[in-house]
């Protein structure tokens, strides 16, 4: 009985992931982050728990309509992270774990994230095409 919500949640996740992918078939190839480790669906949950959505617009994350930081829509195609680092998996993970070290004094808080958690979050953001 307790498994039912999980199944529903997975369905919702699949829908949330599939819908934007179907809606945005923009021209040009998406950068491939194929060999990049990280579990996108786990990352999606972590993003929700960390409250990233109170500052960022994040497709597929409930109530993520923040107006403080930049929207993370189509993140897989974005060129820069924080307007500073080229958008690569290594740079994104570095930024997520140490925003104050990368850009001291910016508004993004230093959440206590493990390497694995940051990789999961990055993996989810790279599903946003």
């Amino acid at each position, binding site marked *: 009985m307790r498994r039912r919500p*999980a199944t529903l*949640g997975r369905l919702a996740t699949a829908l949330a992931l599939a819908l934007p992918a179907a809606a945005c078939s923009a021209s040009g190839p998406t950068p491939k982050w194929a060999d990049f480790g990280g579990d996108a669906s786990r990352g999606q949950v972590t993003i929700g728990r960390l*409250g990233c959505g109170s500052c960022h617009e994040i497709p597929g994350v409930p109530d993520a309509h923040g107006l403080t930081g930049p929207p993370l829509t189509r993140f897989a195609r974005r060129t820069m992270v924080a307007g500073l680092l080229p958008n690569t998996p290594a740079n994104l993970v570095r930024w997520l774990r140490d925003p104050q070290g990368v850009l001291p004094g910016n508004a993004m808080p230093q959440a206590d994230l493990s390497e694995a958690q940051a990789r999961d979050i990055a993996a989810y953001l790279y599903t946003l095409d």
Partner: protein
Amino acid sequence: MVPIRPWRALAWMAAGALLTLVAMGAVGLLVVEDGLFSASAVTPHGAFLGWATHTTMIHSVARSARDAPAPRRFSQAQVAQGFRLYDRHCAMCHGGPGLPRESWTRGLSPTPPYLLDAARRWTPAQLKVIVADGVKMTAMPAWSLTLGEAETWDLVAFLEALPYLSAADYQAMRRISPYRCSISFGQAGAFCRNTGIPPECDIGRWRYNGGVPGGA
């Protein structure tokens, strides 16, 4: 031609409605009595429940604040006092500019939001309702039970100022002596321009610096 008997159709409909109600009641009772609904906070609300609770809260707050009076401007002294209350009572769950929440807040469901843009989403009267009354089925307390009326308005004053504070500004406010009204946002600073708060306090111990650490 078949004679129409509307009372018959009505009787069937009534029976169907009754049966549906009984079935719904039985399912509802099962959920409540048999633990079918998991109260665990490990998995967040599903999409529907999340939408239903959050939307209900938004409309409830809007309704409560509809005819509530709110000051049209706040003084810097209110902002300063509000900051002290916020830093002591709120920052652990809601963070601040460049300031993380306590790590255990990620175990709260629903998760407490950062409030940097709260003043862009809510009116001062609505913020006052949320602070004073709290939010059921979340971890948000009703602060009117422990703070005075003036103090809850001080918190609203600070939330109105929050979109204009950089991470460096927030840390600077922490360094200011808590019992002196010595905050000047800089008369030409964006804070004063945008909020219309008169620079009542005189000493420029720190100034709004446009988000540049150590700048201005």
